């Protein structure tokens, strides 16, 4: 790279073919750059007449590698603390089943983040975004799928919890798992004069069966 020229183009007299190549390439590059930036702009802009008209083209450029979401803390910052807990039902040698206490998965994350100048994605993003994925693909009323990807979200969430809980609790094999998710709205600032938010909402997911396959590769 050290030997690239930095002299103004005026220092060289281009031949005809060279002019043609540079001219065509320049025109193609500028057009391509303009179209690319246009597509990215339409992707981040609110849905509009142009982005609806050219939806296939915009999506073709942007997905999968140029996807972006820059609505950082917008339109409003998140105002809820969401905590995910899980509990398991185990089976003893004789066949007796037992339901164990809730494990605070989010609480584990928070404990790891507290006092940590550089929190790991394992603690800050893994479970948090897995829950967002689940939430975005399920109906909160009856936990049915709203998108085809919902199945993946279920398996992912289950495996995150199982990795932390293990194959057995107190020497008994894990049979089923259940999630409970509490969403607590942040108390408004003291000076705002707003009414305190409603009590935290608790959402309980159905019991999911656990088999050996669910543990594959979890270490």
């Amino acid at each position: 790279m050290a030997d690239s020229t930095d002299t103004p183009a005026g220092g060289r007299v281009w031949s005809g073919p060279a002019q043609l190549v540079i001219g065509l390439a320049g025109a193609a590059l500028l057009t391509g750059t303009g179209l690319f930036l246009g597509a990215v702009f339409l992707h981040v802009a609110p849905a509009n007449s142009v982005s609806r008209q050219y939806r296939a083209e915009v999506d073709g450029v942007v997905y999968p590698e140029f996807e972006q979401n820059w609505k950082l803390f917008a339109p409003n910052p998140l105002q809820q603390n969401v905590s995910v807990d899980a509990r398991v039902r185990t089976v003893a040698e004789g066949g007796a089943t037992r339901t164990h206490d809730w494990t605070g998965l989010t609480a584990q994350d928070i404990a790891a983040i507290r006092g940590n100048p550089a929190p790991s994605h394992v603690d800050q993003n893994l479970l948090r975004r897995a829950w967002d994925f689940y939430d975005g693909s399920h109906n909160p009323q009856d936990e049915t799928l709203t998108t085809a990807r919902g199945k993946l979200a279920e398996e992912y969430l289950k495996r995150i919890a199982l990795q932390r809980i293990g194959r057995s609790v107190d020497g008994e094999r894990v049979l089923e798992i259940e999630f409970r998710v509490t969403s607590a709205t942040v108390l408004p600032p003291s000076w705002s004069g707003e009414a305190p938010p409603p009590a935290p909402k608790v959402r309980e997911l159905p019991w999911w069966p656990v088999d050996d396959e669910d543990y594959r590769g979890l270490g």
Partner: protein
Amino acid sequence: MAAFTGRVLGRHQAAVVRIGFGLVWLAYLLREWPHRRVLYGDRSPWSMDLAQRLLAENGAFTVLPWFGGRLWFELVYHLAVLAAVAVVLGWRTRASTVLFLVTVLSLQNRNVFLGDGGDNVVHLMAVYLVFTRCAEVWSLDARRAGPGRVGVVLWAVLGAVLAVCQLGDFSGESLTWTSPAFPYVGWAPLFWGLWAVAGLWWVLGRLRPDGEPRAVLDALANMIHNCAMLVIAAEVMLIYATAGWYKVQGSRWQDGTALYYPLHLDYFTPWPWLSALAGSALVPVFLISYGTVIVQVAFPFTLLNRRVKNVLLAVMMAEHLGIAVMLGLPVFSLAMIAADAVFLPTGALLWVEARVQRDVVRAGARLLGQALRDLERALRRREDVR
């Protein structure tokens, strides 16, 4: 037009962006090293099976499913570390930025449900950097006189590796020439194109270093660089414009309490006492909330005025430093600062360069002097013993 074809615009800014993103990704990889297998490897709850079901849908690029298993993953992860180091140093940048792109995409696309805005911006810049001449200054490449033998060997090795990946069944659909949907191009044209151009550049440099074909290539490279720098700058503006304009509509930003809420989210309060303190008073919370929106909305327009732009740039970098500490998002914040750096004035960059050089020379001289004195003392002591 002469500037577009004949000059590498913003060469210092390109170098800062390269070094910045190299460092951010390197720091991230090293920080996550103990967790790497859970995040992207064989121990991930997002199992390879789940990943492949999603990848079959979205077609994102990653080499990790090619072999699965731990060994391949470890190889890719550590290659990512090496690529990041090479990008920071500007060593064989034409090749190392491509490896940087491949490794960043491979790891991030292995599990897309891990990232935040920081990962997103690294992902985009990893692509854009490939097209910039980002090693014109502040790089090992710029210090080297000729192409050297290593470059040729590297080119041949990478070509062979690419050929194996292209021909092998293991790469599946990732290295296709075309894609079924718009814009109908796969990854193969990019990789082979870059490889072929690098070879052509070298051959022409040997045969006719002053000939017109090489000058044309040089002009093309300048044009591509200048377009890529435009894309990087536009990307940063889009980030701020989007973040700002959507906030304008938010009730919490309007009532001036927005800042208070992230400071009370468990996931983003590594120092609860500090967050409580920062969110405790009405007027500062109002001013920072409104100030954030104003700065983000205004930034793209301030590019028309150098002085105002530089002031705002400093404000935004300071705010990101605050976010790094306060919300426990150092990787995100440093990535944003590295992106902001594309707008740093050349004068400031040259000033930093001069300062660093002076300090490094001074520190080097001091260390050398100290070492010499120690050596002398040791020798004298030895003679005394005798």
